[in-house]
């Protein structure tokens, strides 16, 4: 069984960049709404929402939506006049869609970081650039290592009677000791790496991820949908000012919207397919 998150990380990266890129750079109301719906659905599918952060996001959403009419006074439908400045319906609509678009991108990225765990990031980076992947993985290791060592140093200092929680000077001394240790330790690590032949030949990489048939399918589907969407974007017609109009009349525009809809729903469709297969297997037993 392979859910959406079990696909090859490179494919996932391409997918997320395509889907969130279109959501970010295209302000057509239909595209924005499709993207927002898909992003929320995916968030719901993968773990749902935490109440506190959702409330925060909702507040931000409302704030951003209401912000635009205060700064932009274009548009023909005046709702009311505030401090000699007209507040227009068009500006409000723009604000709502702008904040919808931002919210959608935020949701996409939240799903992205939930699915792309750090081992997957390392895999993608290592494919692109072995040296960067090495720095990344060492940095991650050192974050944990420095924490452990800081605890050890603090305990030693406490045992010597040199450390008190409330004195800044003691904290700084611990930090200073930690830094010296880290630098020396880094040199030892580097020498050890050199002794074992780092930098002599091409760096190979172990990865648990393989490119399977499902990955090829997902990659080609998402590339195809992205290309179709981009090709039809020019035909999508809309304006916020002076009057809010949306029209989807040419076949290219319809095609673009449909392919973006498919792109957005790819993760959900993958999960649904797997769920159905699982169900079939169950009933056979």
């Amino acid at each position, binding site marked *: 069984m392979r859910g959406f998150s079990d696909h090859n990380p490179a494919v996932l990266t391409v997918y997320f960049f395509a889907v969130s890129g279109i959501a970010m750079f295209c*302000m057509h109301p239909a595209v924005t709404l499709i993207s927002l719906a898909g992003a929320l659905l995916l968030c719901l599918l993968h773990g749902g929402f935490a109440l506190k952060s959702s409330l925060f996001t909702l507040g931000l959403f409302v704030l*951003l939506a209401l912000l635009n009419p205060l700064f932009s006074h274009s548009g023909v439908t005046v709702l009311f006049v505030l401090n000699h400045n007209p507040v227009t319906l068009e500006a409000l609509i723009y604000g709502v869609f702008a904040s919808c678009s931002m919210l959608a*991108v935020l949701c996409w990225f939240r799903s*992205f970081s939930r699915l792309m765990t*750090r081992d997957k990031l390392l895999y993608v980076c290592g494919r692109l*650039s072995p040296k960067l992947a090495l*720095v990344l993985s060492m940095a*991650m290791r050192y974050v944990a290592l420095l924490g452990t060592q800081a605890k050890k140093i603090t305990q030693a200092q406490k045992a010597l009677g040199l450390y008190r929680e409330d004195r800044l000077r003691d904290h700084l001394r611990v930090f200073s000791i930690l830094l010296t240790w880290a630098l020396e330790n*880094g040199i030892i690590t*580097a020498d050890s790496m050199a002794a074992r032949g780092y930098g002599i030949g091409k760096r190979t990489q172990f990865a648990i991820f393989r490119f399977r048939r499902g990955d090829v399918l997902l990659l080609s589907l998402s590339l195809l949908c992205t290309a179709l969407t981009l090709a039809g974007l020019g035909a999508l017609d809309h304006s916020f000012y002076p009057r809010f109009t949306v029209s989807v009349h040419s076949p290219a525009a319809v095609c673009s919207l449909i392919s973006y809809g498919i792109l957005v729903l790819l993760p959900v469709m993958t999960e649904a397919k797997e769920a159905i297969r699982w169900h079939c297997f169950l009933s056979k037993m």
Partner: protein
Amino acid sequence: MLMIRNRMLQNVLRWAIPFVLLPALVIAGAVIFGERRHLFISFAAAALSVLLFLAGIERKKTGTRRLVLTAIMTALCIAGRFIPLCKPVTAVIMLTAMYLGSEAGFLTGAMAALLSNFYFGQGPWTAFQMLAWGLIGWIAGAMAEPLKRSRALLLCTGLLAGVLYSMIMDVWTVLWYGEGFDLQLYLAKILASLPHLVLYAVSNFLFLFWLAKPFGEKLERIRIKYGV
């Protein structure tokens, strides 16, 4: 350069990215994305410049020791971002760049932004953060000698780096929200993020004030002792 082993192709690409690919992307973005073109262009420029810098670093033969030290500094930056209110990230990046060189500075800045955003939230702003911190490192590395000599200059640069960092990130927020670049909105955003701006600048100043001497001594010692 990233993934490509053929040297000639590498050279071709090194010139093609800034002079062919970037203009092409800018023109295509302006045509396809209509009113969002400012956003698209700025994003493409930021992402490509980060890639170009990183590709340059990947090409160069950096010593293993310098590489490991860079990783340690990156880890320190990430750990430093967890300190509430005052963040020593920019200060650490600047000090790293001064003593380990421009490339190490850029790498530390960019990687710290990328990795720490796994804890603080990834988003489209990651590319801008990577570029902003990376460039701070690059510039600090380029003016390493005067910065090492004059403490006043170092502290002023720290203050300026904090202000510029905040203002550059605000440009991005305004571009993302508005149609095009609205100066009024930008000023409002700067006003709204003034507390952050002051906090960045002050924490850079304070951490450089505290850390510059001990940090510098330690890094200098390592450099002399082991010949990094």
